């Protein structure tokens, strides 16, 4: 995707939470949470190896869950050193530690505990020796600018509050996106205003 899109791909990845029924329904393995965290950590290490150098690290990786003999990657990602890694979730013990260790971006929720989550992430960064400020703080959201943009001011205000808490990017769905107009309202009444916060 990164090659085909001219370097626009991100890796958004998480341990998974609600796929259990889907996995059962389709016959896909869905290991216990502890295993999924381990698999996530190993996956990230393997990805970084494959993005390393001209065609990947190519040295055997001996993980508990994955053992690729030769992490070869050709063509190499266009984004160097590698596409940004977003690790989703705000679990304080494991997920945010993985964010601190491996990720270029976190993905949090707009909840009252948000400042606390960021503080936990900062502590993990300290322990892992990584740069907290270099991690992009993102948050999930739902954009509702109202019919004809009547609620745009309110929406911008909510985004401003998130910005003040340290959020740099918001990922949100737009209701009735298929009607296209709601996107145009966002482009007209919200995005320029938010860019100028």
């Amino acid at each position, binding site marked *: *995707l990164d090659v*085909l*899109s*001219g370097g*626009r*791909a*991100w*890796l*958004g*990845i*998480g341990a*998974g*939470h*609600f*796929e*259990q*029924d*889907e996995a059962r*329904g*389709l016959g896909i393995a869905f290991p216990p949470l502890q295993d999924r965290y381990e698999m996530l950590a190993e996956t990230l290490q393997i990805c970084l190896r494959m993005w390393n150098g001209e065609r990947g690290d190519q040295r055997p990786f001996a993980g508990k869950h994955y053992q690729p003999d030769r992490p070869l990657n050709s063509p190499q990602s266009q984004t160097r050193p590698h596409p940004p890694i*977003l690790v*989703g*979730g705000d679990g304080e013990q494991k997920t945010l530690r993985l964010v601190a260790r491996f990720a270029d971006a976190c*993905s949090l*929720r707009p909840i009252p505990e948000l400042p606390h989550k960021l503080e936990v992430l900062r502590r993990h960064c300290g322990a892992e020796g990584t740069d907290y400020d270099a991690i992009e703080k*993102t948050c*999930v959201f739902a*954009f509702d600018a109202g019919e004809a943009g009547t609620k745009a*001011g309110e929406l911008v205000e909510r*985004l*401003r509050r*998130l*910005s*003040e808490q*340290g*959020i*740099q*990017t*918001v*990922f*949100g*769905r*737009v*209701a009735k*996106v*298929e009607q*296209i107009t709601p*996107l*145009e309202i*966002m*482009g*007209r009444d*919200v*995005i*320029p*205003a*938010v*860019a*100028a*916060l």
Partner: protein
Amino acid sequence: MDQSREAHHSAGRARRCRSKELTLVMQQRDEALVGDAETARIEEQEQWAAGGGAYDVVEDLKDRAVVRRGGDTPAGVLVGDHGQLRGIVVFTLDEEAGRGAGAHQRRQPAPGGRLVKVSLQIPSSTWPSGPGRIGATLAEIARTAEASGFDSLAVPDQLWQHPWPGRPGGPEREMLEASSTLAFLAAHTSRVKLLTMVTNRRFGLRRCWPRPSPPWTC
């Protein structure tokens, strides 16, 4: 177009200007001030700027510049030679110009103010036009989102659809496979970032949890 530039001429003084290969596309933001959307070369903008328009570069990223000048007024986007969005521009009248100041009350930027990027999640493709129109609709969503200034497009990495607050959902509803969807979105866009986001579901379902499975009975 002339009307718009005239309006800008009365606005103040130019401080800085971004690279000349950029084209400025104005979006209608304050009808009295801008009129209809217009396209003008940045060189021409420099001319009006020399005569009165004022703006500052507040965020100079590698491939774009975001520009603003306090208060509030029309906003535009900087577009590169190949039509890609290069940044968002917000223009403002000087207060003494007597217009625009009260039109939209944008606050003055706080010291160390941050840029907030807005990204679009496309959590499902259950649309009234039905499965046969998903591709065409998705392409239009992607193109419009890019033109509207969204920073990235994110799709969930799941095969069964999960419900969202306020709308029906469930495994029988349409859910596209993520990698092929992102490749499709890549082909219909030229600037936006592309990614899967697996966490959106947790956000939506938090208030339903814990519940007896399956979760979409919430």
